């Protein structure tokens, strides 16, 4: 029996119809556990990025329910949503980092902007650096990093304030196999830190190539005109 604490995200009967009448989601339901990595796969325009935006409530669904850390995000007021939003790590595509700052400064910038200081900030930096394997590279300027490392740095920034879930939008796109391996290694390590990940990708074979079971894949199909 799963408790609220065990579930990072629960999506139930989610429907989204665009203004043009295209039904992108029709009754989409899934659960993401706290120690789970789930891959959202599908061709372009199948709604992968849209799903992440719905989870962050940047877009409202037509119908359905989205629980993040047990809270229905559609019913939260602006202040509570902002607090919950800080518990969702997000890595967009292309990832956003601060090239002129070091790896560690990237993390500290976010933490200070969120008002996280002192011991909590130190713990956050240490945890993010160790989970993503950046501890030896923390003094390196971000623009000196390779493409794969930059994406992992974006993940480190996203998790440094200890969110419940990490949403990654197409983190493998355009990467070499070695860089894909590096990103996947970081995702696995982040999972061991108790942070679930929801990862989108165009490549439906990617999860299987990295040894993930069928249950770890959420396939989406292009929407149809309703």
């Amino acid at each position, binding site marked *: 029996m799963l408790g609220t604490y065990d579930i990072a995200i629960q999506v139930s009967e989610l429907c989204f119809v665009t203004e043009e009448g295209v039904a992108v989601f029709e009754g989409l339901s899934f659960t993401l556990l706290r120690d789970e990595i789930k891959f959202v796969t599908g061709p372009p325009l199948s709604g992968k990025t849209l799903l992440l935006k719905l989870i962050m409530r940047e877009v409202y669904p037509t119908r359905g329910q989205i629980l993040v850390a047990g809270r229905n995000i559609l019913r939260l007021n*602006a202040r509570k949503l*902002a607090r919950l*939003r*800080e518990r*969702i790590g*997000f*890595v*967009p595509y292309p990832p*956003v*980092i*601060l*090239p*002129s700052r070091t790896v560690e400064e*990237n993390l500290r*910038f*976010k933490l*200070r*902007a*969120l*008002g996280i*200081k002192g011991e909590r900030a130190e713990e956050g930096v240490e945890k993010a650096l160790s989970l993503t394997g950046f501890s030896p590279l923390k003094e390196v*300027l971000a*623009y000196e990093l390779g493409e794969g490392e930059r994406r992992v740095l974006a993940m480190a*920034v*996203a998790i440094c*304030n200890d969110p419940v879930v990490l949403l990654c939008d197409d983190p493998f796109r355009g990467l070499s196999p070695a860089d894909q391996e590096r990103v996947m290694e970081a995702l696995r390590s982040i999972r061991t830190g108790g942070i679930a990940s929801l990862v989108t990708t165009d490549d439906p074979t990617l999860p299987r190539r990295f040894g993930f079971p069928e249950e770890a894949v959420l396939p989406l199909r292009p929407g149809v005109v309703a």
Partner: protein
Amino acid sequence: MTRSLFILGELLRASVREWSRWLGFALALGLVLASGSAMALLQGGRTEKPGGIIRVLVVYLSEELSDAAIDELGWKLWELEGVKKVSFRFSGDELPGGGVSKGRALLLWIGEEGVASALESEVSRLAGGKVMEVELLTLRYPVPTRLPPLSRVISLVALVFFAFVSLVLARSAVVRTLSHWRNEWDLLRFSGVEPWLLMGDFIAVALLWGLVGCVLYLAIYQGLKGAVGGIPAVREVAPGYLASRAFPYLTAFIIGPVWAALAGGFALLLTLRPGRRPRVSEIPET
């Protein structure tokens, strides 16, 4: 609060990289205030009719009258018909139109010349005969220097022009600063920092730079006041310029910052509207 201050500090650092644009905005703001001040002060009213005549009855009083008696007499005289104003002069004090008082005197400011003789006898009666001498001064105010109506039109045009320039420069400064700070902006937005917090800090930066313009305006205002304040023509065309002490400070520290914040907010809204966002700079900052 500390979050906002941190973001404000970072944003200020980014704005310093575009100091020339922000300084241009500050200067334009100073000129908005200056032209607005010119418009407001050039219409300063004057109390006397241009070129009008004023008559003053100078009543020299006996040394026997006490201060209290003079005070009481002054009130009685003020109640007489035809008397507009009563004032007092010690011996040696300056009289209206030049000259000095020969002794303690009450000055009765009257309108018509005809009432002067009637008042003279009434004054003697009320003073119990303790009047040494009564003198009638007839003064003609010089025709004041006039500014052509076009001067106010010019200041209005200048106000509108500099207001427009300040908006254009604010927009330019905001766009350039945001292009330097785009990665930080996006990172914070994706991290869940509320947009109003970021926008508020951007407006605060505009306000802080605007304060530079306000201080410049104040310095020029007070500097000019010291330089031309002694010129009679200046007193005539803009009496409020020399008389009002609060005006420049209210303008500089209330109207100026409000305008700066509005200009910054307007520029930011224009910059952030969909399809008008500057590109993310992929070039590393050095």
